[in-house]
């Protein structure tokens, strides 16, 4: 019996996992419907905390030490580390408050998000998965989270917003990974974590560099045009 089949959708653990997945989707929607950088980061942090809870539920069900470690890592890196670093190193220093570089209205992007969620159900549910296992509910949800993250990256042109969009996509993939394939080899999962942490670090460097360079460039322009 494979690990996925043990996790029936009707068991308490299954219900908890389903609930977490729904919460994660809602938080992705919340991020899509917001205009403040602070909120993006807060919603992403909350989403990661829920994700780490989902990982803990899976770990408890499968009695897997590796999944426990992953749950703790998720909480530490994605739930606390990345939001903290983003706030300290970017939002406060640069000062960023309101995102003005959104190419569609908020309602339009929310409607598009709804359509993408429906699409995710359409493509993943019927053919792919056996019914009655929790994965059957979580896979379309995680697909929807991936698509919503990608949508956020498309409609938002600000670098910080795109960074958060990518992290939401990553969370979506991870949600699929812990439930669909609870037993992804640990070295691989740990490597993915290392990549994300290093990726965020290097992206933060680029973002602050770009913002600084652009600020200098526009100031230089102002000086040249004067007089």
């Amino acid at each position, binding site marked *: 019996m494979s690990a996925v089949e043990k996790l029936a959708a009707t068991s308490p653990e299954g219900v908890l996992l389903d609930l977490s997945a729904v919460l994660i989707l809602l938080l992705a929607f919340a991020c899509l419907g917001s205009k403040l950088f602070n909120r993006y980061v807060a919603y992403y942090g909350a989403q990661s905390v829920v994700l780490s809870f989902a990982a803990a539920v899976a770990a408890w069900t499968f009695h897997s030490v590796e999944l426990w470690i992953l749950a703790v890592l998720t909480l530490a890196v994605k739930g606390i580390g990345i939001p903290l670093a983003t706030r300290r190193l970017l939002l406060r220093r640069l000062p960023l408050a309101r995102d003005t570089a959104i190419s569609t209205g908020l309602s339009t992007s929310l409607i598009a998000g709804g359509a993408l969620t429906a699409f995710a159900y359409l493509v993943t549910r019927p053919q792919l998965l056996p019914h009655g296992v929790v994965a059957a509910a979580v896979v379309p949800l995680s697909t929807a989270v991936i698509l919503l993250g990608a949508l956020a990256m498309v409609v938002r042109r600000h670098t910080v917003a795109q960074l958060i969009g990518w992290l939401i996509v990553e969370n979506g993939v991870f949600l699929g990974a812990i439930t669909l394939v609870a037993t992804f*080899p640990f*070295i691989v999962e740990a490597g993915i974590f290392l990549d994300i942490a290093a990726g965020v670090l290097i992206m933060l460097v680029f973002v602050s560099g770009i913002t600084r360079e652009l600020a200098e460039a526009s100031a230089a322009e102002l000086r040249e045009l004067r007089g």
Partner: protein
Amino acid sequence: MTALAILIVIGPLAGPAAAALRARARAAGGASAAGAVVSLVAAIALLAAQVHRAPLTGWAGFLYVDALSGFFLLTVAGVTLLAAVGSVAYLSAEEDAGTLSAFQVRLYFIFFGLFASLMLASLETGNLGLLFVLVEASTLASAALVGLEGKARSLEAAWKYVIISSLGVTIALAGTLFLFYAASALPLTSNERLTWPYLIMHAAALAPQPLRLAFLLAVVGYGTKVGLAPMHTWLPDAHAEAPSPASAMLSAALLNTGMYAIIRFLAITQARLGTTFPHAVLLTFGFASIVIGVLFMVRRGNFKRLFAYSSVEHMGIIAVALGFGGVLGLYGALLQTLNHAIAKAVLFLGSGDVALRYKTREAPEVRGLLAAVPVTGGALLLGSLAVLGSPPFGLFLSELTIVRAGFAGASPVLPLLLLALLAVAFIAFARTTAGMVTGQAPAPPPAYTGRAARWAAAIPLAAGLVALLVLGLWIPAGLNTAILHSMAVIR
């Protein structure tokens, strides 16, 4: 054998080690080049020893080297050597001119070595999850190279590169996930369900629907790294803004690593679903890339962007060759990979010399290269002819093979379209480079100080052109065997 495989990966780390010891450009570059020599020799030895034997496996499939990996290792290690020698010249010139600080030079060699090492490692693993991890890590290392100069333009290019590639590779991870799921009915441990040789062995028992999705997601995801249209948008910016030896690495090594990942997925998908579906996918993305590449080559402007769009075109050609399939298609695809890698390394390294001398990357501002700087001008002219598929260079042979593979198929429309696009590419590309090398213009001040730097700039150009010429006239028996064995892995 395992020792050789480890040596290949460790070799390029000599550069970072030297840079960490606060070496200057010349010494750190020398260490990088020496490390690359070690890698290349080990890659050749491994390929020679491995080709007639069973694949090298170890560490529960995390290490897996068969003929296909061996062939790509050879390509990437060769390009790394050319680029490392070119780096000695380019970086010491930048250091002497004060364009880059000593710290930036050290950073360059650290990330250059990491980038090469991670790419080589990703070619040696049989675990598709680890493949993702290493490919993403190599993206990050190379993004640091793209943004090295720290100017607004290079930072923007680096940002665009890192965000688009990371998203792309994450999509590939989703594809890997679905492949893992497709294997859930197999009597394998979770580790084996991600390990390529087990998957191909049990391909017949994979669930078809998730596998279909997995292949599509993998092509889109890793295709972002390969630069297949419409996911290519990061490519011209990153190639134009990176220091030239790093551009050579991106174009000639990184794109091939992405293609290698796609080939691994192709082999599994083909074994379960037959060739119709994967070939249609590859032909679609391939032709889209060739068309986009050719269209953007028509514009005259930044010559590094021109070379970058030519890479998009060539990756498209390789995808089309895989899509044509059959003995000729696969042979052509692999030969084209090697030839294109060498030719593009020569072109980007040559473009570095030009950019250093003329202080510009705009083609219309450069004239009379052949008269003013015969070595670079000659290399650029011959390299252009080679990359456009003129005889007697290697790409003529490989492109001819690919077109023949197309005519072996059902309809002559696709190969005819390919020929037409190649002709347009020739005109568009040659129009710009011919303008750069011909004419008379005063010679700008020399780019390099000292004999060592001048040799380091000239040697990779000459070595690359000689290799291309040899490959055009005669395919060494060992290489032929290696390609044939690699094809056996895919079919």
